């Protein structure tokens, strides 16, 4: 069961053996109160190579980038840039060393010109006056370097997102830049724009720049990178030649499961006798900029797992079903009746429930009591005037606190004072009180301790036995396999496979994510 990672670190074989690597990190350790974010991570980047940094949520990618760019200071380990030890204390210091970073969101000023954005904060001055001519010249030199032919006088807002992203790169690339770090640069770009960005990256690579590229999109990793470093739970898993690393192996490194040789799990309970009609049926459901072509069925009493890597469109699918985003393609039926949901309220009226992934932001009402948090959805369903009487409130709250074994000193305790697992149970209790027919659980076990995890899984099985349909989203494949009657696999915001019964296995899901179809059907 335990994922043994006997995978040896592929010995780095630099393209030109005589040149020392551009950047070498050894044994980087970084702790935050209560968490060890990085536990001895190695990383190497070379001149003229594009290096992908991969890992699931919490793997430590962002922390590593922040240590490298001086946002955080490392607790231990060493960093060398072209053989010289470095220890940047701030992003400015890192920039001065030649380490340039472009973040996911474009951090520029939309209503200034392209040229001003490129030179912002370091405008050439004479006697306190800005030298506009030189700003233009500098900006155009920077754009030239990227092979970008645009008018540097136009405002940034008038450019496409892709061009804005490239302007951000132009800004980051000081003449002294040696290493360029791109943190998820493609997440808001369409395919053509990604191609444009990759064209520029190839040019920079040919100029001898080292590039570090963080992304969730597997296709893009294989399209552009030379080498891949995988992190998991703050530890270094390995460094690999992209061309020699099969996709399946990459995925197994990322999620920490060996691709071969682990047990086939039988689903926790036999699949319920399929009712003639599913409770929820989605056909080709999609939304521009979100997910595409989602076919999905959930029967009453069935747990359907929604699997896929981070960014594959799992939460987006849940948002479409629950009416948080409006579908602009395909259709959805509940018990055979076509519906078009425009708000959670309408979804709840149709007996849907949704436990969101981000408990603190979209789940708990922090200062209200456990009782009030539990009753909220039920009361919202009943409306303003049909007030649930205080004695009934107390009875309901106490019963759910007991059923779910929520650890709280009292039902009137503000919910923010509870532990993460107990907060999650309060939100579950909120939905149970509202008595939905279909419950969407988005990462219900994230960030809670093992005991609470087991309890929530047990509860899911019991609820399904009582006839509740559950759409279960999780990054933990083992958990998906263990609990689901049927599994739908997403990749790059599309549905790519569906499996049920004995076909459900981690191997099959990983094959599907890697190759677009489960092993069994190949």
């Amino acid at each position, binding site marked *: 069961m335990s994922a043994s990672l006997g995978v040896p670190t592929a010995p780095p074989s630099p393209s030109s053996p005589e040149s020392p690597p551009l950047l070498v990190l050894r044994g980087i350790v970084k702790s935050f109160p209560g968490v060890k974010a990085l536990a001895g991570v190695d990383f190497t980047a070379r001149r003229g190579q594009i290096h992908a940094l991969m890992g699931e949520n919490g793997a430590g990618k962002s922390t590593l980038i922040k240590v490298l760019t001086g946002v955080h200071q490392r607790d231990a380990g060493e960093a060398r840039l072209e053989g010289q030890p470095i220890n940047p204390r701030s992003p400015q210091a890192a920039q001065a060393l030649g380490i340039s970073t472009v973040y996911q969101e474009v951090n520029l000023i939309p209503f200034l010109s392209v040229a001003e954005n490129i030179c912002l904060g370091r405008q050439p001055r004479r006697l306190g006056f800005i030298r506009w001519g030189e700003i233009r010249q500098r900006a155009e030199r920077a754009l030239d370097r990227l092979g970008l032919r645009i008018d540097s006088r136009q405002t940034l807002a008038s450019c496409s997102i892709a061009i804005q992203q490239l302007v951000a790169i132009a800004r980051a690339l000081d003449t002294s830049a040696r290493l360029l770090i791109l943190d998820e640069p493609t997440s808001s770009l369409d395919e053509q724009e990604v191609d444009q960005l990759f064209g520029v990256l190839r040019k920079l690579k040919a100029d001898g720049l080292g590039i570090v590229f963080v992304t969730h999109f597997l296709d893009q990793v294989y399209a552009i990178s030379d080498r891949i470093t995988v992190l998991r739970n703050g530890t270094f898993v390995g460094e690999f030649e992209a061309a020699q690393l099969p996709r399946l192996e990459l995925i197994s490194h990322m999620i920490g499961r060996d691709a071969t040789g682990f047990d086939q799990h039988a689903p926790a309970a036999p699949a319920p006798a399929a009712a003639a009609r599913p409770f929820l049926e989605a056909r080709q459901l999609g939304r521009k900029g979100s997910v595409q072509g989602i076919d999905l069925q959930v029967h009453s009493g069935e747990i359907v797992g929604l699997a896929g890597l981070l960014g594959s469109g799992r939460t987006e699918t849940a948002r479409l079903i629950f009416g*948080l985003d409006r579908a602009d393609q395909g259709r959805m039926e509940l018990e055979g009746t076509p519906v078009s949901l425009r*708000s*959670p*309220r309408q*979804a*709840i*009226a149709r007996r849907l429930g*949704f436990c*969101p992934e981000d408990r603190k*932001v*979209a*789940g*708990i*009402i*922090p*200062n*209200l009591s456990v009782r*009030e948090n539990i*009753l*909220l*959805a039920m*009361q*919202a*369903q*009943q*409306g*303003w*005037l*049909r*007030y*649930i009487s205080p004695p009934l409130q107390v009875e309901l709250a106490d019963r759910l606190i007991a059923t779910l074994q929520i650890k709280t000193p009292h039902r009137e305790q503000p919910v923010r004072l509870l532990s993460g697992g107990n907060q999650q149970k309060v939100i579950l209790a*909120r939905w149970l009180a*509202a008595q939905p027919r279909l419950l969407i659980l988005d990462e219900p076990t994230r960030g809670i301790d093992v005991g609470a995890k087991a309890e929530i899984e047990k509860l899911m099985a019991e609820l399904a036995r009582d006839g509740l349909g559950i759409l279960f989203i999780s990054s933990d494949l083992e958990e998906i396999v263990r609990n689901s009657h049927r599994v739908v696999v997403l990749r790059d915001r599309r549905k790519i496979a569906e499996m049920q019964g004995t076909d459900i296995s981690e191997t099959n899901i990983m094959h599907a994510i890697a190759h677009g179809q489960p092993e069994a059907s190949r």
Partner: protein
Amino acid sequence: MNWRNLRWPLAALGLLLLFNLVFTPGFFHFELKEGRLYGSLIDILNRAAPVMLLSLGMTLVIATGGVDLSVGAIMAMAGAVGALLINAGCPVALAITAALAGATMAGLWNGALVGPLQVPPIVATLILMVSGRGIAQLLTNGQIITFENRAFEYIGRGHLAGVPFPIFLVAGCFLILHRSLTRTAAGLFIEACGDNELASRYAGVHTRLVKFIVYGASGLCAGLAGLIVATDIKGADANNAGLYLELDAILAVVLGGTALAGGRAHLGGSLLGAALIQTLTTTILTRVSPHFTLVVKSAVIIGVCLLQAPKFRQLVLRWRHAS
């Protein structure tokens, strides 16, 4: 009611009363003359009535995480509408109903901007704060519209069982709102919406409707306050009626323990806050020249606000430990 949050305003009020007990002869003296009760305390409550009414509506708005800057202007509008209708010979009931309905409509206009249209509350209510007073001035041609009508004047000048009628209006409004919050789901929805709007929406609360309604309630309370002020002086003064009272109302709410960021609503606390502000004003007015009123008032209020701030209390504690 959570008395813990009210410790400091209660203490400040207690200190003020104690000060007056010692230094103001006859402060706690009540006198029955011609069937009417007179005394400083009655006077304070009577004068505080408009701000108390405003602060009740404002409590709901602030609990949802918003603010209503337009209540002073709505007061002026309601007074103007009432005065014009009375002078036009309308029945008193109709004049009152029309003034209150207009004020409620004005509040719902704010609510429509903040709720469905998602305009930030400060911007949305600032619009009516400026234009509302303008409308009132247009209605009255910039003049003070005076009137003589015993029944209408009863709102601001009447006595019931010897006690000024505005005090009953405040008590009535408090009871109605308190019941609405505790006997319907309104309280839960308002507090949930102010504490975490996104999560409330996810749980199916109609957050935009909640906001729409609380601004309407605030408008209605302001309309009533406007009628009290106009009938008290037997005239609608569009230029001065309710001027800057929105600020006193916000202050009363904050003193009463409702967080400006939204969340728990403390109606009783807001009344206490309004009473504190008026007691302070009266105390200052009876001993020093009126020019000092605002400065002294500010000083006391800064003190109470600092004492309520957890950061400041920590600082004081640390300083005491250090010395």
